């Protein structure tokens, strides 16, 4: 039996939802009925300004004409306004007396123009600007009229003003605030925009509150302001903001704040069969007035309703939009002003040409930007903003295309010969990369995959990206998969976790079966295995084939296909007895090299694979986890045990840390250290997590440090006064990182991405109230730990590597 879906509102959101639903086979599940109080199919509201300006014919802006609804068997009640939704009877009532029952109903009502309280609004010649009909009425009123006033200098007001100007009117913009478009622009940008608009012929009046629309014989003649001044005009367009349409929902007993309140499932908290999307809805305290978010919402809701992904959720939208006041290029995204003292503002202003560019950088990433009068810089910035990419050292490269290429890097890359090596890890040359681009690799991900460039240490990725842009120019495409946790399952981490939990997926093959259409992806297997183990602990169903060889045989594969074995030496403290065992094993199994590692451990290199179980047995020490994405080592200094300067027991603490967290799986490896005083001999401030003793018996905990191909001093998470507290906060941070980082995201990238303040809020201040839960979860992982070297060897891996076999039939070839 098909269910009935009623969509109220046939605007951008409602129609988009239905399109998305049809794409996902929604027709099989639902009879779809739509109500729209505008007597048309649906049209692109954004283009109304162009219709007003005469740049578009109204018929050009239709997205779906009435015929489309017929062809798709959608019942459209065009020109019918819904006047009531009875949730008990599950029916929707139209103003024509018609009634439609529903199983699920979606509110997509949009907003209405807000008309501030003033006298004289009911006269002839006063308009709002929201619908095709509004546009039509305005156009009909123009002939024979000379002067128009637009109340409101926001985006819509300016679009209307520009449209009227285009129609040959004298146009005045009357704005309450001290600069134009104050919601999107800072004061400087507002000023430059004003100058550009003045040059086009608009008159602009700032800080003017209109209190009356003057008229004669019921028709407009002018405006009167609060300061007593007046302005003569023949018509008025009021564009002072919008208000979400919520009346209908309120009357139906739904929770309404500024908009109709919905959760991440886009359903009303009051009724699982009622959904709201678009401008009329409010998610996580936010209402949106642009189309990009409603596309996101329509997609998520379509996934849910079509049951393609019944667990799909919406998590808000980052709004980066290109707005076009005819003849003015403007792109805005994110925040408008610097808000913390660490924020950097990079600006460039050239009032005469109407150019203004500002980027706000926080912790090396773009959090907001305004670009006026330079459409070229916009796509790059929007992309960096969306991805949260790191900004170039030379900030000017954000704003300008230096040397005609993508900044300095590109210029020097361009001059490199084709043989020049770009990716040292994989030996990939510039020529290899250019060939792959010409061969069709048009996104960074595809390019890296097909050439392997950038897949080693990753430091050359920027250059690979720059070469891609050089070679492909505008044809570069973005992969949606940059947001996925692993490439083979099309979900970002939070959604993936949610689906895994909701469906009880405890093995890697089950994830592929349920969430990737049964398609296995090799590159995704280890990441999924790690995630599942973190999520399920003991319930995790281990599938050996999902592990990388290192984790299958608990040792590190080397370039000659032998293995390196590192026994665990807690805190770097060993004994003569252990050293003898290690030396004996080295002799017996012919280690090609015995090496002290950077993390204070002893490495036996060149061990044959089939010898591994014997080496473990002889060593009789736990695995040092020198493979695996897991907690590795805690390096220590001698602290108060022996050092003249030590003020804290760094050795004891290091051992305790290592005993507690050994082998804990995580998105990437974690290297720790403790130092007995700020001299920091164990380099604790450049580790994933470090603890440094300070005088007064306290420990500073650092997180997100790095001393690899990138060097980064860790951020202080908190200062505590006992070993126990160090263990607690380290554990809590680890668990938070385990749950929230992307696969293969080191702590230093993770901490930068999330921001140390945010991390501290959750981990130390416990603002989300999940501290106890994080503690319990890391404890569960600690408890679930078992030494892999004690495992029964995986027979098919370890039985003698080569099996001479009897030829059953030896035939001459060709027979």
């Amino acid at each position, binding site marked *: 039996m098909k269910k009935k879906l009623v969509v109220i509102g046939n605007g951008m959101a409602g129609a988009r939802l239905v399109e998305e639903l049809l794409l996902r086979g929604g027709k099989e599940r639902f009879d779809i009925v739509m109500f729209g109080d505008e007597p048309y199919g649906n049209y692109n509201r954004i283009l109304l300004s162009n219709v007003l300006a005469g740049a578009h014919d109204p018929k050009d802006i239709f997205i779906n004409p009435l015929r489309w609804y017929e062809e798709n068997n959608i019942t459209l009640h065009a020109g019918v306004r819904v006047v009531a939704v009875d949730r008990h009877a599950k029916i929707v009532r139209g103003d024509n007396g018609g009634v439609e029952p529903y199983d699920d109903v979606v509110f997509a009502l949009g907003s209405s123009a807000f008309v501030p309280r003033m006298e004289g609004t009911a006269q002839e010649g006063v308009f709002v600007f929201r619908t095709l009909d509004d546009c039509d009425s305005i156009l009909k009123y123009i002939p024979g009229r000379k002067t128009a006033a637009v109340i409101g200098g926001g985006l819509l007001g300016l679009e209307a003003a520009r449209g009227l100007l285009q129609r040959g009117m004298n146009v005045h913009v009357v704005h309450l605030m001290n600069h134009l478009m104050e919601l999107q622009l800072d004061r400087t940008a507002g000023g430059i925009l004003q100058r550009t608009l003045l040059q086009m012929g608009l008159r602009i009046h700032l800080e003017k509150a209109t209190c009356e629309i003057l008229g004669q014989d019921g028709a407009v003649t002018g405006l009167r302001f609060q300061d007593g001044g007046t302005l003569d005009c023949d018509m008025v367009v009021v564009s002072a903001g919008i208000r979400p349409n919520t009346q209908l929902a309120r009357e139906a007993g739904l929770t309404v704040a500024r908009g109709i309140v919905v959760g991440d499932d886009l359903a009303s908290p009051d009724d699982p069969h009622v959904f709201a999307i678009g401008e009329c809805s409010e998610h996580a305290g936010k209402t949106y007035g642009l189309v990009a978010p409603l596309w996101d919402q329509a997609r998520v809701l379509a996934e849910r309703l079509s049951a393609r992904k019944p667990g799909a959720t919406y998590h808000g939208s980052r709004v980066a939009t290109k707005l076009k006041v005819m003849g003015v290029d403007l792109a805005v995204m994110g925040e408008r002003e610097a808000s913390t003292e660490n924020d950097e503002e990079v600006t460039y202003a050239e009032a005469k040409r109407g150019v203004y560019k500002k980027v706000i950088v926080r912790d090396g990433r773009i959090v907001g930007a305004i670009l006026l009068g330079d459409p070229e810089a916009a796509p790059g910035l929007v992309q960096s903003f969306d991805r949260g990419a790191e900004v170039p050292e030379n900030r000017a490269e954000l704003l300008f295309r230096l040397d005609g290429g993508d900044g300095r890097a590109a210029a020097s890359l361009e001059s490199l010969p084709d043989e020049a090596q770009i990716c040292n890890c994989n030996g990939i040359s510039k020529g*290899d990369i250019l060939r792959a681009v010409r061969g069709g690799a048009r996104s960074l991900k595809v390019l890296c995959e097909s050439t392997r460039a950038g897949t080693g240490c990753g430091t050359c990725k920027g250059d690979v990206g720059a070469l891609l842009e050089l070679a492909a120019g505008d044809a570069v495409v973005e992969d949606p998969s940059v947001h996925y946790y692993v490439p083979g399952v099309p979900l970002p981490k939070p959604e993936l976790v949610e689906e895994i939990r909701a469906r009880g997926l405890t093995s890697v093959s089950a994830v592929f079966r349920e969430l990737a259409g049964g398609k296995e992806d090799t*590159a995704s297997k280890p990441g999924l295995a790690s995630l599942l183990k973190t999520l399920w602990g003991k319930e995790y169903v281990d599938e050996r*084939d999902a592990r990388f*060889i290192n984790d299958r045989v608990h040792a590190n594969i080397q370039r000659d296909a032998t293995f390196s074995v590192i026994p665990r030496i807690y805190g770097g403290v060993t004994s003569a007895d252990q050293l003898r065992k290690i030396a004996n094993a080295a002799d017996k199994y012919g280690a090609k090299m015995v090496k002290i590692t950077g993390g204070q451990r002893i490495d036996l290199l060149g061990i044959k694979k089939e010898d591994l179980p014997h080496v473990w047995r002889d060593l009789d020490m736990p695995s040092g986890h020198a493979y695996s994405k897991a907690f590795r080592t805690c390096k220590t200094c001698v602290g108060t045990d022996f050092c003249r300067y030590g003020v804290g027991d760094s050795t004891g603490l290091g051992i305790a840390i290592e005993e507690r967290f050994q082998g804990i799986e995580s998105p990437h490896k974690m290297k720790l250290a403790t130092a007995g005083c700020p001299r920091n001999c164990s380099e604790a401030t450049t580790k994933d997590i470090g603890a440094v003793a300070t005088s007064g018996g306290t420990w500073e905990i650092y997180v997100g440090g790095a001393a690899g191909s990138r060097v980064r001093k860790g951020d202080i998470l908190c200062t505590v006064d006992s070993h126990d507290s160090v263990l607690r906060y380290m554990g809590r941070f680890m668990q938070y990182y385990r749950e929230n980082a992307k696969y293969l995201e080191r702590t230093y990238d993770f901490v930068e991405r999330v921001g140390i303040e945010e991390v501290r809020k959750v981990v130390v201040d416990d603002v989300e109230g999940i501290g106890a839960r994080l503690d319990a979860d890391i404890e569960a992982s600690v408890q679930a730990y078992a030494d892999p070297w004690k495992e029964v060897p995986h027979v098919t891996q370890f039985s003698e590597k080569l099996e001479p076999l009897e*030829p*059953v039939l030896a*035939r001459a070839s060709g027979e």
Partner: protein
Amino acid sequence: MSTWNLGSVERIALGEGRTFRAGELEVAVFRTRAGELFATQAQCPHGQGPLADGIVGAARVVCPLHAYTFDLRTGCVTQGACDTLRTYPVEVSSTGEVILHV
């Protein structure tokens, strides 16, 4: 051409590969999760990586050393730039044993 009996299919773990020697020749034999069998040369043409230690998914294997990836059906490299793998016919006999032709 010669034919070899590798014994029960259980000797190759589901979803993994294993190296066998047939006379002088080393062969990697794979058993995918879908239950298909494939056989290829044992070492990666790029840097002699032991392919049987790689990760197998659908009909692909990823070399454990530098992650070059090959299609097990054809031996063609699908990621990275190097030679095609030599592949060998392999089948399961009516008695459940793996038969390899090299």
